[in-house]
């Protein structure tokens, strides 16, 4: 089994009309055994900036702490909020620093630019190669299933409520076909004036 599949997990982020969504499952497992159903994989890095870190759970937590440190230092020095684009570049750099002994996470970034509020999503491989699509990004062990669901359900310019529905359905139906993802889900809808966090009721198997 690949080291990126040791803990399992599913993650997705989508662009909408003046909003973005990011969602993940809540399982913490060790191979086939589920240990917890309240494990956080998406972290707030700013009022309109969220990062999801699917992969090895210990690296999820470590990369989050190291990233938060770098982001805080940037914001202190620059005296302004970091933008999603710069944040992604910073994360990419951090991962590539460990090119020959990497962190086993494949991050997903979602947010709105602090000045223009333009929606932004991207994802990366474990050594920091950034991918900038215009529609959706996926991550985790259910990524193949997620690609299928997103390709089928996503359409451009979805409003926040529609984006929530689309994201939730894509995530749930994808991880229901993955034995090591699921056991609950959390969805974040990020808009200019508010962030809505919803915990979904899902199959717990």
């Amino acid at each position, binding site marked *: *089994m*690949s*080291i990126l*599949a*040791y803990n*399992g997990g599913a993650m997705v982020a989508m662009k909408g009309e003046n909003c973005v969504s990011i969602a993940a499952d809540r399982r913490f*497992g060790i*191979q*086939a*055994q*589920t240990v917890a*159903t309240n494990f956080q994989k998406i972290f707030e890095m700013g009022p309109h900036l969220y990062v999801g870190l699917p992969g090895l759970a210990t690296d999820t937590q470590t990369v989050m702490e190291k990233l938060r440190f770098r982001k805080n230092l940037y914001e202190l020095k620059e005296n302004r909020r970091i933008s999603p684009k710069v944040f992604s570049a910073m994360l990419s750099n951090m991962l590539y620093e460990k090119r020959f002994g990497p962190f086993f996470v494949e991050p997903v970034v979602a947010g709105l630019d602090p000045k223009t509020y333009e929606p932004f999503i991207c994802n990366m491989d474990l050594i920091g190669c950034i991918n900038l699509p215009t529609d959706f990004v996926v991550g985790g*062990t259910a990524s*193949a*299933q997620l690609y299928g669901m997103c390709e089928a359900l996503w359409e451009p310019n979805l409003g926040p409520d529609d984006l929530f529905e689309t994201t939730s359905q894509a995530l749930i139906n994808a991880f*229901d*076909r*993955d*034995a*090591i993802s699921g056991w609950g889900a959390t969805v974040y809808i990020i808009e200019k004036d508010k962030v809505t966090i919803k915990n979904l*009721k899902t*199959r*717990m*198997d």
Partner: protein
Amino acid sequence: MPPIFSGHPTMLEENDWRNAAHSTGTSIMAAEFAGGVIIGADSRTTTGAYIANRVSDKLTRITDHIYCCRSGSAADTQAIADIVSYHLNFHGMELGEEPLVEVGAAIFRELCYNYRDSLMAGILVAGWDKKKGGQIYSVPIGGMCVRQPVSIGGSGSSYVYGYVDANFKPNMSKDECIQFVTNTLALAMSRDGSSGGVIRLGIITEKGVERRVILGDQLPKFYED
């Protein structure tokens, strides 16, 4: 002798014997009650981590009064069940009577023991006959055969040994036993990644077999939201 470490030392070895149990992705069980036996299974078949079938039927008919619960390789157990069904049907014709559960279990054991190096099969044989009533015979990997009043199998079973030991009582009523089997499998499915879907039940008595399905929203809930 398979190597313990090979390749990158921090990567997990795929064919390592320590991960052998991982492929028996299933939760199955059988329990005796007053009047017969109840068998149950989850409905998940996985290829690696992908759920290939989320509504599979792991309770397979051998005769009208003898069923088996299959865990391990889906191909191996299906092939074995077909062969046993053939032999038992032929034997029944020779005898002129319904074949005995212990005979069915013995045929399973012959196959699972003699071909143990080629097979990955953990089977529970359960049924009713007029000689001994409701019986369960466990034929795990390796091919031993032992009769038990209650038996669990598959990768999900590890999580429910304690629950079964604490909650099984001999001579339960049919409804009590159904609840016991349902609860046990729900707990196993909730913890084991390789188990899930719906719970399939079979109630085997003198009258034959009654099949039931417990769908996702009707499963007993034990987790906290």
